């Protein structure tokens, strides 16, 4: 009985979180169109989030491309279908693995960073200080960060995809003596705009979710240093879950379009 009550409590608090998050998102859409536009801060956030995540995304993408090709090669070889490797790897990476892995990495790197930064600003009264100086902290801190993650994530995804394909090429080149030109010709033959465009659109939503949840958790951080840690932690957990839900919806919608 106690376990059931506990589950109900957790579910109730999850629903409350969703409700509050929706209100927070509503406020974002209201504020995003209002003047003044904090363009300088938006650019600074783009630089912070984009540029500083490049190395992490590159390393992860490279390893994924490498490992994915190494693991798939023996199976394809068994069926005499090694020549399909570039097509298989590129479609998997562009459509699914690239966006979701990059988004998960950014949820850890950027989402937790936003949660911790805004959380610590909240507990040290810096957000209150902005408000009493007549500045709209939501616009300056939240709107700029959500926009930055929304616009930076698709770029990071494309960059991560390219690096992953390069990693895959290196394996093919070493093991199968496939040239750069041949490998990427096969990739270009296999890929269509129908693979690239839904994945890129999906990445915008991933970026939006990372920024939104990170800001929501940080901005509503409870008092104390423990609250900051909790904000950073729950930002990552909540975002990761949300990313898979968005991914499921995106794949479902894309599938409908494919059928048409």
């Amino acid at each position, binding site marked *: 009985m106690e376990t059931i009550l506990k589950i109900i409590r957790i579910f109730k608090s999850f629903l409350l979180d969703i409700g509050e998050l929706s209100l927070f998102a509503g406020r974002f859409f209201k504020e995003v169109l209002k003047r*003044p536009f904090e363009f300088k801060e938006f650019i600074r956030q783009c630089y912070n989030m984009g540029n500083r995540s490049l190395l992490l995304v590159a390393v992860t993408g490279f390893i994924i491309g490498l490992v994915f090709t190494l693991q798939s090669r023996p199976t394809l070889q068994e069926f005499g279908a090694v020549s399909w490797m570039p097509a298989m790897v590129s479609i998997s990476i562009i459509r699914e693995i690239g966006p979701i892995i990059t988004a998960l990495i950014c949820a850890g790197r950027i989402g937790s960073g936003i949660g911790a*930064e805004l959380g610590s*600003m909240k507990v*040290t*009264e*810096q957000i*209150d*200080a*902005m*408000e*009493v*100086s*007549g*500045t*709209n902290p939501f616009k300056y801190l939240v709107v700029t960060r959500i926009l930055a993650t929304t616009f930076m994530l698709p770029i990071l995804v494309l960059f991560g995809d390219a690096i992953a394909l390069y990693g895959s090429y290196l394996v093919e080149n070493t093991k199968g003596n496939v040239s750069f030109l041949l490998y990427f010709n096969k990739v270009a033959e296999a890929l269509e705009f129908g693979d690239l465009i839904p994945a890129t659109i999906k990445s915008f939503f991933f970026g939006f979710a990372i920024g939104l949840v990170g800001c929501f958790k940080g901005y509503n951080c409870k008092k104390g240093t423990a609250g900051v840690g909790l904000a950073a932690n729950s930002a990552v957990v909540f975002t990761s879950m949300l990313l898979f839900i968005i991914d499921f919806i995106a794949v479902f919608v894309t599938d409908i379009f494919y059928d048409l």
Partner: protein
Amino acid sequence: MENFQYNTESIIEIKNLKKSYGENHVLNGFNMNLVEGENLVIMGKSGSGKSVMIKCLIGLEDPDSGTICVMGKDISQLNHDELDELRTEVGFLFQGSALYDSMTVRENLEFPLRRHTKKFGVIKDTTPLVMEALENVGLANTINLMPEELSGGMKRRIALARTLILQPKIILYDEPTTGLDPITAKEIILLMISIQKKYNTSSIIITHDVDCARAISNRMILLVDGINYVEGTFEELITSNDPKIQAFFK
């Protein structure tokens, strides 16, 4: 503090202010007024509602009931833009200084300035205003430092400079000397007095520091259980025989 010549015009008037957090009734009908040029000290035990009151006053918390009039405007009737405009006339010095730690001292001071083009116009070069504010607090040489490079006392001074840069008519101090050593605390008190004289500001000072209250107050209010317990000058209160009042000065 030398004798204060009272005029009758209140620039802040709080009537029957009530605020609760669940079952915790923090403010239970607090009343207060502040006249122009006056330094009003509010003392009270921790949890007596001082900080909540000052946050209601600046619009950071919404009261449950009661009215707060600042410079003749009922803040509950103001929209967000009007409240922001009013806030340029009311400075707030936070207990923990609340400097923006991702910005330099210069950027901390420029931050409010660049956003109030209505009051100041579009300022192309903020350096003279920033330097003037920093010179007022004796820290002109810290302009390019980050907050983490400053001591507690310096942070408090920079926060005061950031408050002053908007040229407010009223300054609210939330425990300005808490956490500072006695010498630095005394420096901050002297700085507050000199600023008050220079700019003729009115101030509400929330403090536990008897020395601070003695040095700066024209009038004091003791807050007990969210309500005014007693009001008077420092001398009147310190000579009182009431054990509850005496407890504050021991």
